[in-house]
């Protein structure tokens, strides 16, 4: 307990849900206020910027659909990351896992002969598998050789990005693309259907929302989910209880990486219809999903909503470029500010401020 003038600061061990929500909301608000300074530095009135963004994204059908389209990969990656984070496995590798899914899906789309009706399901399956493999490697490195997963998952991102780069410049470079670093266009049977009048590839969206529900149930209602939470909260107790750290972690990462990879499948099959350079396939969704999962405080259902918030920020980025003449990279500043204030706000949740001025009677008592 600390005293700050007439205020008392008290530690609280388990913040109630309302406090978690309130503090997170406050953190986002603070980040938006800080971002206003960036607008102002660019010579754009923050009030005008925010009203333009509000009108352009939330005010039109096109804007709303753009938010959802951007949110789809974030939902899948974010839900997957909540699973890894609940096991206290700091998976920074959703970006690479996403790209792995995109590569596998492209392979199936362009080079595997299957009946048309099976092509898309097979692309999703292959994508999931590729992401799972890519994600389970750092888990095994951690278990067997104690390699720090933050480093290994991050480095795996670069490896996968360069693999994609090499594929689109080299062996998979499309003969019909006249020298551009793209693969050929996917056949129609490998393209995801869109909701009419929008650019929302709804099958991926459905998979993402379903994944959130399934992961939520997995965590709360199954043996594996229970073991993931035990391993995450107290690995020593897990050992004591005879829970295998290695297999729980591996399974959690198979699911986490697999879900991130589905996002990659959705991007190539629903948005680009081909594989292209990694910066275009992903726009850093895998990294932004870290903030999505963090803001959701490890809840897969909440991750759907936080993903929509970041979908809004991405959509706003497009808008700022076209209507305000600001660089798209400003979305990175947004994301950074939000993550920054979120992490700082954690402290607030665990302290309660109480108004308790000193009583005059107290000094009298000391004289007894």
């Amino acid at each position: 307990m600390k005293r700050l003038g007439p205020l008392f600061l008290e530690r609280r061990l388990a913040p109630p849900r309302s406090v978690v929500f309130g503090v997170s909301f406050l953190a986002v608000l603070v980040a938006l206020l800080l971002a206003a300074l960036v607008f102002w530095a660019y010579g754009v009135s923050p009030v005008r910027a925010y009203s333009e963004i509000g009108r352009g994204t939330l005010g039109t059908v096109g804007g709303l659909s753009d938010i959802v389209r951007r949110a789809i990969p974030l939902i899948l990656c974010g839900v997957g990351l909540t699973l890894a984070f609940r096991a206290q496995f700091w998976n920074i590798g959703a970006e690479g896992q996403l790209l792995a899914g995109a590569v596998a899906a492209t392979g199936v789309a362009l080079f595997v002969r299957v009946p048309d009706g099976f092509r898309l399901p097979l692309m999703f399956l292959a994508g999931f598998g590729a992401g799972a493999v890519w994600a389970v490697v750092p888990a095994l490195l951690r278990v067997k050789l104690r390699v720090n997963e933050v480093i290994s998952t991050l480095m795996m991102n670069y490896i996968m990005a360069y693999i994609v780069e090499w594929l689109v410049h080299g062996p998979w470079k499309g003969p019909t693309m006249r020298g551009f670093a793209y693969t050929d266009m996917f056949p129609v049977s490998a393209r995801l259907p869109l909701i009419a009048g929008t650019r929302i590839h709804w099958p991926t969206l459905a998979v993402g929302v379903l994944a959130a529900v399934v992961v939520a149930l997995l965590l709360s209602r199954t043996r594996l989910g229970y073991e993931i939470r035990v391993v995450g909260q107290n690995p020593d107790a897990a050992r004591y209880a005879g829970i295998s750290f290695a297999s729980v972690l591996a399974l959690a990462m198979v699911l986490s990486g697999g879900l991130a990879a589905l996002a990659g499948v959705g991007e190539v099959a629903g948005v680009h219809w081909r594989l292209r350079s990694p910066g275009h396939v992903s726009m850093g969704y895998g990294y932004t999903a870290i903030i999505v999962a963090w803001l959701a405080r490890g809840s897969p259902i909440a991750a759907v909503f936080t993903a929509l918030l970041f979908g809004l920020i991405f959509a706003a980025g497009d808008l700022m470029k076209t209507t305000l003449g600001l660089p798209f990279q400003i979305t990175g500043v947004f994301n950074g500010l939000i993550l920054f204030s979120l992490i700082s706000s954690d402290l607030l949740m665990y302290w309660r401020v109480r108004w308790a001025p000193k009583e005059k009677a107290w000094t009298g008592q000391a004289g007894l």
Partner: protein
Amino acid sequence: MAEGAREAVLLRNITKSFPGVVANDRVTFDLQPGEVHALLGENGAGKTTLMNVLYGLYRPDEGEIWVRGRRVHLRSPRDAIDLGIGMVHQHFKLVAPHGVAENVALGLSGTPFWAPARTVGRQLKELSERYGLPVDPDRRVWELSAGEQQRVEILKALIRGAQVLILDEPTSVLTPQEAGELFKVLGRMKAEGHGVIFISHKLDEVLSVADRITVMRRGRVVGTVRAEETDKAALARMMVGREVVFRLTKKACQPGEAALVVEDLHARTDRGTPALRGISLAVCRGEILGLAGVAGNGQRELVEVLTGLRRPERGRVAILGQDLTRASARRIADAGVAHVPEERIRLGIVPGLSVEENLILKKHHRPPFCRAGGLRLAAVRQFAGRAIEEYRIMTPGPRTPAKLLSGGNIQKLILARELSGNPALVIAAHPTYGLDVGATEQIREILLRQREAGAGILLVSEDLEEIMELADRIAVLFRGEIMGTVLAGEATLEEIGLMMAGERRTVAVGEER
């Protein structure tokens, strides 16, 4: 102001709070020069907090500190040391790879930059002769026994000119004989005019060593009495707030088939040094085997090997006739072995999970809690409700995070979980350590009840009184070997003390069982 002039130390109306508890509530305490003043209370009564305030580690929320008639504000232990206050912590603060003299010289002002240990060595010798604290300045700390390390800590304080010495639970790591030596040293310090504050929760030693005794309970001073004017029962009443029964009623032991047989077990510590050197012992169903010994003589490693958390190098472990020498923790648990771990918060619970989720740990993978990979919440809830009631776990609800429970209730939670399903063997490590008297009594009763229900119990404890009270047979562990096994009814404290210090007992009693 003349007040506080006579006292070596005067603490007045000290209040110090931590989240959720007031550790010291307007505590007043004084120490005269040339006296031993004991601070008595259960674990968690606020003794250590009060002394940490006096040593400058905590700042009090309210209250005054006077040292030799001067009001002081202590910002750090440095200030306390400058005022002639020294503290020997319960867990020694020594640098193990360094020598004795180097440890004493560490942070000592007035030593030369080069080879400070050499100058200190001379002073050290003189002081250790004067107070009867033999130590070799050139030995490395890790080579020393706990008793010797404690002497180093006392010398460290004396060389810094301590007029007031605070000893926090000094006998918890000592054999009874070593404790006797310490008391002689305290006598000599008294004669030299030093004041000593002696923190303890053991009634006997407080009565024998102290001049005055201040009893604390739940952060408050219950009273201060002169040692010659009080007795054990009166002190216990002050400490607990009610009459305490010193003897539990225990039915005669009816040992059944062997629950645990250990033969020639060898294992190493985490650092690779030998921890167990050929342990053989047996626990029958329906009996309690107490394992006594000073901490760090292989108890932890033995428990870990028996519960599948550490691999033995050699030897055999059989549980209910089944060879489980290198079995996994899960297989051993599934075979009907309950484990009440020494570090109950680190191993025993998952702090963020709810009470009911913690109650099924280790059993979560089997029916009735798990079927086809899914958790059956109804079964979990039903089991938790019964366990909370039966073991009187004080919790706001079954879904409260376990970390919000008090230490005693966390231990009850662990016992409720481990003892469910009638285990054949219970391995209980320090089951009442740090708990208040009420919880301690309850947990001891639970263990006795389990014994009557036919479980074999291996009770590892540093609390000799507890072992004497609960165990049917007592084995003593010293440097990874069993020094001997005695029947609890026939054992004397002296005999066990000698074995704890490494004296082997030639005739083993009760070994044929």
